Protein backbone atom coordinates (compact mmCIF):
# COMPACT_ATOMS: atom_id res chain seq x y z
CA UNK A 1 0.00 0.00 0.00
CA UNK A 2 1.10 3.53 -0.67
CA UNK A 3 1.89 5.65 2.35
CA UNK A 4 -0.66 8.25 3.39
CA UNK A 5 -0.14 11.84 2.42
CA UNK A 6 0.86 11.15 -1.19
CA UNK A 7 -1.32 10.84 -4.20
CA UNK A 8 -0.75 7.45 -5.85
CA UNK A 9 2.72 7.57 -7.45
CA UNK A 10 3.25 11.10 -6.10
CA UNK A 11 1.93 13.11 -9.07
CA UNK A 12 -1.59 14.53 -8.95
CA UNK A 13 -4.10 13.01 -11.37
CA UNK A 14 -4.34 16.09 -13.55
CA UNK A 15 -0.60 16.12 -14.14
CA UNK A 16 -0.63 12.42 -14.93
CA UNK A 17 -3.39 12.91 -17.49
CA UNK A 18 -1.39 15.68 -19.12
CA UNK A 19 1.72 13.49 -19.28
CA UNK A 20 -0.30 10.53 -20.60
CA UNK A 21 -1.62 12.71 -23.39
CA UNK A 22 1.98 13.62 -24.27
CA UNK A 23 2.92 9.91 -24.20
CA UNK A 24 0.02 8.98 -26.49
CA UNK A 25 1.08 11.62 -28.94
CA UNK A 26 4.68 10.42 -28.72
CA UNK A 27 3.60 6.84 -29.44
CA UNK A 28 1.54 8.03 -32.40
CA UNK A 29 4.57 9.81 -33.91
CA UNK A 30 7.55 7.52 -33.22
CA UNK A 31 10.71 9.44 -32.35
CA UNK A 32 9.03 12.85 -32.30
CA UNK A 33 9.74 14.99 -29.23
CA UNK A 34 6.53 16.05 -27.54
CA UNK A 35 6.76 18.98 -25.10
CA UNK A 36 5.06 18.51 -21.74
CA UNK A 37 4.61 20.60 -18.62
CA UNK A 38 7.28 19.06 -16.41
CA UNK A 39 6.48 19.20 -12.69
CA UNK A 40 8.77 19.86 -9.77
CA UNK A 41 9.88 16.53 -8.42
CA UNK A 42 11.41 15.76 -5.03
CA UNK A 43 14.70 14.99 -6.79
CA UNK A 44 17.08 17.36 -8.60
CA UNK A 45 17.36 17.31 -12.39
CA UNK A 46 19.97 14.81 -13.46
CA UNK A 47 18.37 12.25 -11.16
CA UNK A 48 15.94 11.08 -13.76
CA UNK A 49 13.02 13.38 -13.10
CA UNK A 50 11.82 12.99 -16.71
CA UNK A 51 11.82 9.21 -16.47
CA UNK A 52 10.21 9.33 -13.02
CA UNK A 53 7.33 11.49 -14.27
CA UNK A 54 6.74 9.10 -17.17
CA UNK A 55 6.81 6.09 -14.86
CA UNK A 56 4.53 7.84 -12.35
CA UNK A 57 1.99 8.54 -15.07
CA UNK A 58 1.78 5.01 -16.43
CA UNK A 59 2.27 2.88 -13.32
CA UNK A 60 -0.71 1.00 -11.87
CA UNK A 61 -1.19 -0.94 -8.63
CA UNK A 62 -0.53 -4.28 -10.37
CA UNK A 63 2.74 -3.22 -11.95
CA UNK A 64 6.12 -4.56 -10.97
CA UNK A 65 8.96 -2.09 -11.27
CA UNK A 66 12.64 -2.60 -11.98
CA UNK A 67 15.06 0.34 -11.88
CA UNK A 68 18.60 0.23 -13.22
CA UNK A 69 21.40 2.72 -13.39
CA UNK A 70 24.36 1.82 -15.65
CA UNK A 71 22.94 -1.70 -15.70
CA UNK A 72 22.94 -2.12 -11.94
CA UNK A 73 19.93 -2.40 -9.62
CA UNK A 74 21.87 -1.49 -6.50
CA UNK A 75 23.33 1.96 -7.21
CA UNK A 76 22.20 4.91 -5.10
CA UNK A 77 20.13 6.37 -7.93
CA UNK A 78 18.37 3.11 -8.79
CA UNK A 79 17.68 2.29 -5.15
CA UNK A 80 16.24 5.71 -4.37
CA UNK A 81 13.93 5.70 -7.41
CA UNK A 82 12.75 2.18 -6.57
CA UNK A 83 12.08 3.22 -2.97
CA UNK A 84 10.29 6.32 -4.17
CA UNK A 85 7.74 4.24 -6.09
CA UNK A 86 7.49 1.55 -3.42
CA UNK A 87 6.61 4.31 -0.95
CA UNK A 88 4.33 6.47 -3.10
CA UNK A 89 2.62 3.77 -5.17
CA UNK A 90 3.09 0.70 -3.01
CA UNK A 91 3.97 -1.31 -6.11
CA UNK A 92 6.06 -4.45 -6.14
CA UNK A 93 9.66 -4.13 -7.27
CA UNK A 94 12.02 -6.66 -8.77
CA UNK A 95 15.54 -6.99 -10.07
CA UNK A 96 14.57 -9.73 -12.53
CA UNK A 97 14.19 -8.22 -16.01
CA UNK A 98 11.53 -10.65 -17.20
CA UNK A 99 9.41 -10.18 -14.06
CA UNK A 100 9.15 -6.42 -14.44
CA UNK A 101 6.24 -4.79 -16.25
CA UNK A 102 7.90 -1.37 -16.16
CA UNK A 103 11.67 -0.89 -16.26
CA UNK A 104 13.13 2.53 -15.67
CA UNK A 105 16.69 2.92 -16.88
CA UNK A 106 19.61 5.23 -17.01
CA UNK A 107 22.39 4.38 -19.50
CA UNK A 108 21.57 0.74 -20.38
CA UNK A 109 19.07 -1.63 -21.93
CA UNK A 110 18.97 -4.97 -20.09
CA UNK A 111 20.72 -7.91 -21.73
CA UNK A 112 17.71 -10.17 -21.24
CA UNK A 113 15.48 -9.48 -24.26
CA UNK A 114 12.32 -7.57 -23.40
CA UNK A 115 8.96 -9.05 -24.29
CA UNK A 116 5.51 -7.84 -25.30
CA UNK A 117 3.70 -5.94 -22.58
CA UNK A 118 6.87 -4.62 -20.98
CA UNK A 119 7.62 -0.89 -20.93
CA UNK A 120 11.15 0.49 -20.85
CA UNK A 121 11.36 4.07 -19.53
CA UNK A 122 14.58 5.94 -20.31
CA UNK A 123 15.91 8.89 -18.35
CA UNK A 124 17.07 11.46 -20.88
CA UNK A 125 19.46 14.32 -20.12
CA UNK A 126 19.51 15.99 -23.58
CA UNK A 127 16.75 15.03 -26.01
CA UNK A 128 17.65 17.04 -29.12
CA UNK A 129 20.07 15.25 -31.49
CA UNK A 130 20.63 18.36 -33.60
CA UNK A 131 21.49 20.65 -30.68
CA UNK A 132 25.27 20.30 -31.10
CA UNK A 133 25.11 22.04 -34.47
CA UNK A 134 22.07 24.26 -34.03
CA UNK A 135 21.42 26.07 -30.75
CA UNK A 136 18.11 27.59 -31.86
CA UNK A 137 15.06 25.53 -30.93
CA UNK A 138 12.92 27.04 -33.73
CA UNK A 139 15.51 25.98 -36.27
CA UNK A 140 15.89 22.40 -34.98
CA UNK A 141 12.11 22.03 -35.06
CA UNK A 142 12.14 23.11 -38.67
CA UNK A 143 14.96 20.69 -39.46
CA UNK A 144 12.90 17.86 -37.98
CA UNK A 145 9.78 18.95 -39.83
CA UNK A 146 11.64 19.04 -43.14
CA UNK A 147 13.75 15.94 -42.40
CA UNK A 148 16.93 17.95 -42.85
CA UNK A 149 19.15 15.40 -41.18
CA UNK A 150 22.07 15.20 -43.60
CA UNK A 151 24.22 17.42 -41.39
CA UNK A 152 24.06 14.79 -38.65
CA UNK A 153 26.50 12.84 -40.75
CA UNK A 154 28.96 15.72 -40.47
CA UNK A 155 29.56 14.58 -36.91
CA UNK A 156 30.19 11.00 -37.93
CA UNK A 157 32.43 12.27 -40.74
CA UNK A 158 34.50 14.17 -38.16
CA UNK A 159 34.83 11.02 -36.07
CA UNK A 160 36.22 9.05 -38.98
CA UNK A 161 38.51 11.88 -40.10
CA UNK A 162 39.94 12.14 -36.60
CA UNK A 163 39.98 8.58 -35.34
CA UNK A 164 39.72 6.43 -38.46
CA UNK A 165 36.37 5.07 -37.37
CA UNK A 166 33.09 6.30 -35.90
CA UNK A 167 34.22 6.91 -32.34
CA UNK A 168 30.84 8.02 -30.97
CA UNK A 169 30.01 5.19 -28.59
CA UNK A 170 27.21 6.54 -26.38
CA UNK A 171 23.98 8.32 -27.24
CA UNK A 172 24.53 7.22 -30.83
CA UNK A 173 21.97 8.87 -33.14
CA UNK A 174 19.21 6.79 -34.75
CA UNK A 175 16.36 7.21 -37.23
CA UNK A 176 13.07 5.91 -35.90
CA UNK A 177 10.63 4.30 -38.30
CA UNK A 178 12.53 5.83 -41.22
CA UNK A 179 11.48 9.28 -40.10
CA UNK A 180 12.52 11.14 -36.95
CA UNK A 181 16.12 11.50 -35.88
CA UNK A 182 16.39 10.55 -32.21
CA UNK A 183 18.86 10.53 -29.36
CA UNK A 184 18.58 7.26 -27.49
CA UNK A 185 19.96 8.85 -24.27
CA UNK A 186 23.49 7.93 -23.16
CA UNK A 187 23.15 4.18 -23.58
CA UNK A 188 26.18 2.51 -25.19
CA UNK A 189 25.78 1.97 -28.93
CA UNK A 190 26.08 -1.70 -27.99
CA UNK A 191 22.43 -1.39 -26.96
CA UNK A 192 21.19 0.34 -30.12
CA UNK A 193 20.28 -2.89 -31.94
CA UNK A 194 18.06 -3.85 -28.98
CA UNK A 195 15.80 -0.88 -29.72
CA UNK A 196 15.13 -2.11 -33.24
CA UNK A 197 11.76 -3.89 -33.57
CA UNK A 198 11.63 -4.51 -29.84
CA UNK A 199 8.31 -6.03 -28.74
CA UNK A 200 8.40 -3.74 -25.68
CA UNK A 201 7.16 -0.14 -25.62
CA UNK A 202 10.03 2.32 -25.15
CA UNK A 203 9.36 5.72 -23.57
CA UNK A 204 11.86 8.52 -23.13
CA UNK A 205 11.49 11.31 -20.57
CA UNK A 206 13.63 14.45 -20.39
CA UNK A 207 12.78 16.41 -17.21
CA UNK A 208 14.88 19.52 -17.55
CA UNK A 209 14.04 20.01 -21.23
CA UNK A 210 10.42 18.90 -20.78
CA UNK A 211 10.22 16.46 -23.67
CA UNK A 212 8.77 12.99 -24.07
CA UNK A 213 9.33 10.69 -27.03
CA UNK A 214 8.63 7.05 -27.77
CA UNK A 215 9.35 3.98 -29.84
CA UNK A 216 6.21 1.86 -30.11
CA UNK A 217 6.62 -1.94 -30.13
CA UNK A 218 8.00 -3.50 -33.32
CA UNK A 219 9.23 -0.17 -34.71
CA UNK A 220 12.33 -0.02 -36.89
CA UNK A 221 15.27 1.85 -35.34
CA UNK A 222 18.33 2.41 -37.50
CA UNK A 223 21.70 3.72 -36.35
CA UNK A 224 23.22 6.32 -38.69
CA UNK A 225 26.35 5.32 -40.59
CA UNK A 226 28.23 5.53 -43.89
CA UNK A 227 28.13 2.91 -46.66
CA UNK A 228 31.87 2.38 -46.28
CA UNK A 229 31.86 2.72 -42.46
CA UNK A 230 28.85 0.67 -41.36
CA UNK A 231 27.48 0.87 -37.82
CA UNK A 232 29.21 -1.50 -35.41
CA UNK A 233 28.78 -2.22 -31.71
CA UNK A 234 31.54 -2.42 -29.11
CA UNK A 235 33.40 -5.74 -28.84
CA UNK A 236 35.68 -7.07 -26.11
CA UNK A 237 38.65 -9.42 -26.18
CA UNK A 238 37.60 -10.63 -22.74
CA UNK A 239 34.55 -12.42 -21.43
CA UNK A 240 32.87 -11.55 -18.12
CA UNK A 241 35.26 -12.54 -15.32
CA UNK A 242 32.36 -13.67 -13.16
CA UNK A 243 29.88 -15.43 -15.47
CA UNK A 244 31.96 -16.00 -18.60
CA UNK A 245 29.45 -14.27 -20.90
CA UNK A 246 30.91 -13.19 -24.23
CA UNK A 247 27.72 -11.50 -25.32
CA UNK A 248 27.07 -8.83 -22.75
CA UNK A 249 28.26 -5.25 -22.31
CA UNK A 250 31.32 -5.33 -20.06
CA UNK A 251 32.53 -2.77 -17.52
CA UNK A 252 36.16 -2.64 -16.57
CA UNK A 253 36.58 -2.63 -12.80
CA UNK A 254 39.68 -2.12 -10.71
CA UNK A 255 40.14 -4.98 -8.28
CA UNK A 256 43.02 -3.75 -6.12
CA UNK A 257 45.45 -0.87 -5.78
CA UNK A 258 48.20 -2.65 -7.72
CA UNK A 259 46.62 -2.14 -11.10
CA UNK A 260 44.56 -5.33 -11.01
CA UNK A 261 41.42 -5.09 -13.12
CA UNK A 262 38.80 -7.27 -14.67
CA UNK A 263 35.85 -7.11 -17.01
CA UNK A 264 32.40 -7.90 -15.68
CA UNK A 265 28.86 -7.62 -17.03
CA UNK A 266 27.38 -4.17 -16.52
CA UNK A 267 23.94 -5.81 -16.22
CA UNK A 268 24.06 -7.13 -12.64
CA UNK A 269 20.79 -9.09 -12.89
CA UNK A 270 21.93 -10.87 -16.05
CA UNK A 271 25.34 -11.70 -14.58
CA UNK A 272 24.01 -12.88 -11.22
CA UNK A 273 21.38 -15.08 -12.78
CA UNK A 274 23.93 -16.68 -15.09
CA UNK A 275 26.09 -17.49 -12.09
CA UNK A 276 23.08 -18.91 -10.24
CA UNK A 277 22.53 -21.13 -13.26
CA UNK A 278 26.08 -22.45 -12.90
CA UNK A 279 28.00 -20.35 -15.42
CA UNK A 280 31.50 -19.40 -14.39
CA UNK A 281 34.09 -16.94 -15.61
CA UNK A 282 37.88 -16.74 -15.44
CA UNK A 283 37.74 -15.24 -11.94
CA UNK A 284 35.24 -17.72 -10.52
CA UNK A 285 36.34 -20.88 -12.30
CA UNK A 286 39.89 -21.25 -11.10
CA UNK A 287 40.37 -20.91 -7.31
CA UNK A 288 44.01 -19.89 -7.83
CA UNK A 289 43.05 -17.42 -10.57
CA UNK A 290 43.43 -13.72 -10.17
CA UNK A 291 40.84 -11.64 -8.40
CA UNK A 292 38.85 -14.53 -6.91
Amino acid at each position, binding site marked *: MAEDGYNFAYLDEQTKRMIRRAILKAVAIPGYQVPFGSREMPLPYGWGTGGIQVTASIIGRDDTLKVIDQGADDTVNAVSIRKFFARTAGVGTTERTEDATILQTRHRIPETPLGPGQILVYQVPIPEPLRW*LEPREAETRKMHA*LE*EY*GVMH*VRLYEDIARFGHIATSYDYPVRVNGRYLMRPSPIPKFDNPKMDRSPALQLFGAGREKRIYAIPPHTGVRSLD*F*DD*HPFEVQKWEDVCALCGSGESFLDEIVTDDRGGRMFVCSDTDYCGRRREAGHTGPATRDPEGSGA
Partner: protein
Amino acid sequence: MAVLQCNALQLRYTGMMPEAPPLLSARGVTKYYEGIPGCRNVSFEVWPGEVLGIVGESGSGKTTVLNCISARLEPTSGTVEYATRHDGPADIYRMSEPARRLLMRTDWGFVHQNPREGLRMGVSAGANIGERLMAVGARHYGNIRQAATDWLDKVEMDTGRMDDLPFTFSGGMQQRLQIARNLVTAPRIVFMDEPTGGLDVSVQARLLDLLRGLVSDLGLAAVIVTHDLAVARLLSHRLLVMRRGEVVESGLTDQVLDDPQHPYSQLLVSSVIHP
Protein backbone atom coordinates in the same frame (compact mmCIF):
# COMPACT_ATOMS: atom_id res chain seq x y z
CA MET B 1 44.38 46.96 -75.33
CA ALA B 2 41.93 47.46 -72.49
CA VAL B 3 39.26 48.50 -74.96
CA LEU B 4 39.79 45.37 -77.04
CA GLN B 5 39.48 43.18 -73.98
CA CYS B 6 36.25 44.68 -72.81
CA ASN B 7 34.77 44.55 -76.29
CA ALA B 8 35.50 40.84 -76.41
CA LEU B 9 33.79 40.45 -73.06
CA GLN B 10 30.79 42.39 -74.23
CA LEU B 11 30.47 40.25 -77.34
CA ARG B 12 30.68 37.07 -75.34
CA TYR B 13 28.24 38.38 -72.85
CA THR B 14 25.69 39.79 -75.28
CA GLY B 15 25.94 36.60 -77.29
CA MET B 16 24.63 34.65 -74.32
CA MET B 17 21.51 36.56 -73.73
CA PRO B 18 19.03 35.28 -76.30
CA GLU B 19 19.81 31.60 -75.66
CA ALA B 20 18.25 31.07 -72.27
CA PRO B 21 15.66 32.77 -70.09
CA PRO B 22 16.97 34.72 -67.11
CA LEU B 23 18.09 32.63 -64.16
CA LEU B 24 16.80 35.18 -61.72
CA SER B 25 14.55 38.17 -62.07
CA ALA B 26 13.78 40.77 -59.46
CA ARG B 27 10.77 42.99 -60.08
CA GLY B 28 9.99 46.05 -58.02
CA VAL B 29 11.80 44.67 -54.99
CA THR B 30 11.21 46.96 -52.03
CA LYS B 31 12.18 46.39 -48.44
CA TYR B 32 11.24 48.59 -45.49
CA TYR B 33 12.80 47.99 -42.10
CA GLU B 34 10.02 49.11 -39.78
CA GLY B 35 9.31 52.10 -41.98
CA ILE B 36 12.93 52.81 -42.92
CA PRO B 37 13.61 52.02 -46.58
CA GLY B 38 16.36 49.46 -47.21
CA CYS B 39 15.79 49.31 -50.96
CA ARG B 40 13.08 50.61 -53.26
CA ASN B 41 11.65 49.37 -56.52
CA VAL B 42 14.70 47.41 -57.63
CA SER B 43 14.31 45.42 -60.85
CA PHE B 44 16.89 43.44 -62.82
CA GLU B 45 17.68 40.09 -64.34
CA VAL B 46 20.61 37.74 -63.91
CA TRP B 47 21.36 35.51 -66.90
CA PRO B 48 23.00 32.10 -66.79
CA GLY B 49 26.75 32.49 -66.53
CA GLU B 50 26.54 36.21 -65.92
CA VAL B 51 28.27 38.06 -63.11
CA LEU B 52 26.30 41.03 -61.88
CA GLY B 53 27.98 43.56 -59.62
CA ILE B 54 26.06 45.78 -57.22
CA VAL B 55 28.02 48.87 -56.21
CA GLY B 56 27.28 51.93 -54.13
CA GLU B 57 28.43 53.53 -50.92
CA SER B 58 27.84 52.05 -47.51
CA GLY B 59 24.16 52.12 -46.55
CA SER B 60 22.95 52.37 -50.16
CA GLY B 61 20.99 49.10 -49.88
CA LYS B 62 23.31 46.56 -51.56
CA THR B 63 23.13 43.94 -48.82
CA THR B 64 19.38 44.41 -48.53
CA VAL B 65 18.93 43.67 -52.23
CA LEU B 66 21.26 40.67 -52.08
CA ASN B 67 19.39 39.20 -49.14
CA CYS B 68 16.02 39.81 -50.79
CA ILE B 69 16.99 38.00 -53.98
CA SER B 70 18.62 35.08 -52.18
CA ALA B 71 15.58 34.10 -50.09
CA ARG B 72 17.15 35.38 -46.90
CA LEU B 73 14.94 38.43 -46.43
CA GLU B 74 11.38 38.63 -47.72
CA PRO B 75 10.77 41.96 -49.48
CA THR B 76 7.95 44.20 -48.32
CA SER B 77 6.76 44.21 -51.92
CA GLY B 78 7.93 43.05 -55.32
CA THR B 79 8.78 39.58 -56.56
CA VAL B 80 11.86 37.46 -57.11
CA GLU B 81 11.69 34.65 -59.64
CA TYR B 82 14.22 31.90 -60.09
CA ALA B 83 14.37 29.51 -63.06
CA THR B 84 14.25 26.16 -61.26
CA ARG B 85 15.77 23.16 -63.04
CA HIS B 86 12.56 21.19 -63.19
CA ASP B 87 9.61 23.51 -62.83
CA GLY B 88 10.78 26.61 -64.66
CA PRO B 89 10.48 30.11 -63.19
CA ALA B 90 9.13 30.16 -59.65
CA ASP B 91 8.57 32.93 -57.12
CA ILE B 92 11.12 32.09 -54.42
CA TYR B 93 8.88 33.37 -51.64
CA ARG B 94 5.80 31.47 -52.88
CA MET B 95 7.36 28.05 -53.32
CA SER B 96 7.17 25.55 -50.45
CA GLU B 97 9.68 25.96 -47.68
CA PRO B 98 11.34 22.55 -48.26
CA ALA B 99 11.76 23.41 -51.95
CA ARG B 100 13.25 26.79 -51.09
CA ARG B 101 15.65 25.38 -48.52
CA LEU B 102 16.74 22.66 -50.91
CA LEU B 103 17.41 25.28 -53.57
CA MET B 104 19.46 27.32 -51.12
CA ARG B 105 21.79 24.47 -50.31
CA THR B 106 22.14 22.93 -53.75
CA ASP B 107 21.50 25.31 -56.66
CA TRP B 108 22.63 28.40 -54.80
CA GLY B 109 25.66 29.46 -52.87
CA PHE B 110 26.11 32.32 -50.45
CA VAL B 111 29.52 33.73 -49.58
CA HIS B 112 29.55 36.01 -46.55
CA GLN B 113 32.02 38.81 -45.98
CA ASN B 114 32.77 37.32 -42.58
CA PRO B 115 33.78 33.67 -43.04
CA ARG B 116 32.59 32.95 -39.49
CA GLU B 117 29.04 33.39 -40.71
CA GLY B 118 29.54 31.11 -43.66
CA LEU B 119 31.62 28.35 -42.12
CA ARG B 120 30.91 25.80 -39.45
CA MET B 121 33.75 26.78 -37.14
CA GLY B 122 33.56 23.68 -34.94
CA VAL B 123 34.31 21.13 -37.65
CA SER B 124 37.25 20.49 -39.98
CA ALA B 125 37.83 22.02 -43.42
CA GLY B 126 36.91 18.68 -45.02
CA ALA B 127 33.63 18.47 -43.10
CA ASN B 128 32.83 22.05 -44.07
CA ILE B 129 33.16 21.13 -47.72
CA GLY B 130 31.40 17.77 -47.34
CA GLU B 131 28.42 19.14 -45.43
CA ARG B 132 26.30 20.06 -48.44
CA LEU B 133 26.97 16.70 -50.03
CA MET B 134 25.83 14.92 -46.88
CA ALA B 135 22.83 17.23 -46.68
CA VAL B 136 21.66 15.99 -50.07
CA GLY B 137 22.23 12.34 -49.22
CA ALA B 138 25.90 11.45 -49.82
CA ARG B 139 26.63 8.45 -47.58
CA HIS B 140 30.00 7.24 -48.77
CA TYR B 141 32.78 8.63 -46.57
CA GLY B 142 35.51 7.93 -49.13
CA ASN B 143 33.68 9.76 -51.90
CA ILE B 144 32.89 12.74 -49.68
CA ARG B 145 36.54 12.96 -48.70
CA GLN B 146 37.63 12.77 -52.30
CA ALA B 147 35.27 15.61 -53.22
CA ALA B 148 36.66 17.66 -50.34
CA THR B 149 40.22 17.01 -51.55
CA ASP B 150 39.32 18.01 -55.10
CA TRP B 151 37.73 21.23 -53.92
CA LEU B 152 40.58 22.21 -51.63
CA ASP B 153 42.74 21.77 -54.69
CA LYS B 154 40.48 23.87 -56.90
CA VAL B 155 40.54 26.77 -54.44
CA GLU B 156 44.32 26.34 -54.20
CA MET B 157 44.47 25.26 -50.58
CA ASP B 158 46.83 22.73 -49.05
CA THR B 159 44.97 19.40 -49.15
CA GLY B 160 47.14 18.23 -46.27
CA ARG B 161 45.19 20.60 -44.02
CA MET B 162 41.85 18.99 -44.75
CA ASP B 163 41.35 17.89 -41.13
CA ASP B 164 42.27 21.24 -39.59
CA LEU B 165 39.66 23.51 -38.01
CA PRO B 166 38.73 26.75 -39.82
CA PHE B 167 40.14 29.06 -37.15
CA THR B 168 43.64 27.73 -37.85
CA PHE B 169 43.48 29.23 -41.37
CA SER B 170 44.18 32.84 -42.39
CA GLY B 171 41.31 35.11 -43.42
CA GLY B 172 42.04 34.61 -47.11
CA MET B 173 42.12 30.84 -46.71
CA GLN B 174 38.88 30.87 -44.73
CA GLN B 175 37.30 32.74 -47.61
CA ARG B 176 38.56 30.09 -50.05
CA LEU B 177 37.14 27.42 -47.81
CA GLN B 178 33.79 29.18 -47.78
CA ILE B 179 33.83 29.29 -51.56
CA ALA B 180 34.71 25.59 -51.85
CA ARG B 181 31.98 24.69 -49.37
CA ASN B 182 29.45 26.48 -51.56
CA LEU B 183 30.61 25.24 -54.93
CA VAL B 184 30.79 21.55 -54.05
CA THR B 185 27.15 20.97 -55.04
CA ALA B 186 27.73 22.68 -58.41
CA PRO B 187 25.33 25.58 -57.82
CA ARG B 188 24.12 27.67 -60.75
CA ILE B 189 24.27 30.98 -58.94
CA VAL B 190 26.37 32.31 -56.10
CA PHE B 191 25.56 35.37 -54.03
CA MET B 192 28.52 37.18 -52.51
CA ASP B 193 28.47 40.06 -50.06
CA GLU B 194 31.81 41.89 -50.07
CA PRO B 195 33.69 38.60 -50.46
CA THR B 196 37.11 40.26 -50.32
CA GLY B 197 36.07 42.83 -47.74
CA GLY B 198 38.27 42.32 -44.72
CA LEU B 199 41.38 41.15 -46.57
CA ASP B 200 44.81 42.68 -47.26
CA VAL B 201 45.25 44.08 -50.74
CA SER B 202 47.60 41.33 -51.98
CA VAL B 203 45.45 38.54 -50.49
CA GLN B 204 42.42 40.20 -52.02
CA ALA B 205 44.03 40.27 -55.47
CA ARG B 206 44.80 36.55 -55.40
CA LEU B 207 41.31 35.71 -54.21
CA LEU B 208 39.81 37.83 -56.97
CA ASP B 209 41.90 35.98 -59.57
CA LEU B 210 40.72 32.69 -58.18
CA LEU B 211 37.09 33.78 -58.14
CA ARG B 212 37.27 35.06 -61.68
CA GLY B 213 38.76 31.78 -62.85
CA LEU B 214 36.21 29.65 -61.05
CA VAL B 215 33.24 31.66 -62.22
CA SER B 216 34.27 31.46 -65.86
CA ASP B 217 35.43 27.81 -65.73
CA LEU B 218 32.22 26.67 -64.11
CA GLY B 219 29.93 28.97 -66.09
CA LEU B 220 28.53 30.20 -62.80
CA ALA B 221 26.18 33.09 -62.46
CA ALA B 222 26.99 35.38 -59.57
CA VAL B 223 25.73 38.48 -57.86
CA ILE B 224 28.55 40.32 -56.14
CA VAL B 225 27.96 43.15 -53.76
CA THR B 226 30.93 45.44 -53.27
CA HIS B 227 31.68 49.02 -52.43
CA ASP B 228 34.98 48.60 -54.29
CA LEU B 229 34.77 49.56 -57.95
CA ALA B 230 38.04 47.77 -58.74
CA VAL B 231 36.55 44.52 -57.53
CA ALA B 232 33.42 45.18 -59.57
CA ARG B 233 35.43 45.90 -62.69
CA LEU B 234 37.49 42.78 -62.36
CA LEU B 235 34.64 40.35 -61.75
CA SER B 236 31.40 41.60 -63.15
CA HIS B 237 29.95 41.74 -66.64
CA ARG B 238 27.23 44.14 -65.69
CA LEU B 239 26.74 46.65 -62.90
CA LEU B 240 23.95 48.18 -60.87
CA VAL B 241 24.80 51.42 -59.12
CA MET B 242 22.76 51.99 -55.98
CA ARG B 243 22.15 55.09 -54.00
CA ARG B 244 19.80 55.57 -51.05
CA GLY B 245 18.09 52.26 -51.69
CA GLU B 246 17.50 52.81 -55.39
CA VAL B 247 19.25 51.75 -58.58
CA VAL B 248 20.40 54.95 -60.24
CA GLU B 249 22.24 53.40 -63.18
CA SER B 250 22.80 50.00 -64.73
CA GLY B 251 24.66 48.69 -67.72
CA LEU B 252 27.70 46.79 -68.91
CA THR B 253 30.50 47.23 -66.42
CA ASP B 254 32.90 49.03 -68.72
CA GLN B 255 30.23 51.35 -70.02
CA VAL B 256 29.17 52.35 -66.54
CA LEU B 257 32.69 52.78 -65.26
CA ASP B 258 34.17 54.44 -68.36
CA ASP B 259 31.20 56.60 -69.23
CA PRO B 260 28.90 56.99 -66.24
CA GLN B 261 25.64 58.76 -67.04
CA HIS B 262 24.10 59.46 -63.66
CA PRO B 263 25.73 62.26 -61.64
CA TYR B 264 26.06 59.93 -58.65
CA SER B 265 27.85 57.28 -60.75
CA GLN B 266 30.12 60.02 -62.08
CA LEU B 267 30.92 61.05 -58.54
CA LEU B 268 31.56 57.47 -57.50
CA VAL B 269 33.90 56.83 -60.43
CA SER B 270 35.74 60.13 -60.10
CA SER B 271 36.32 59.51 -56.41
CA VAL B 272 38.24 56.37 -57.36
CA ILE B 273 40.23 57.99 -60.12
CA HIS B 274 41.11 61.05 -58.05
CA PRO B 275 41.20 59.78 -54.49
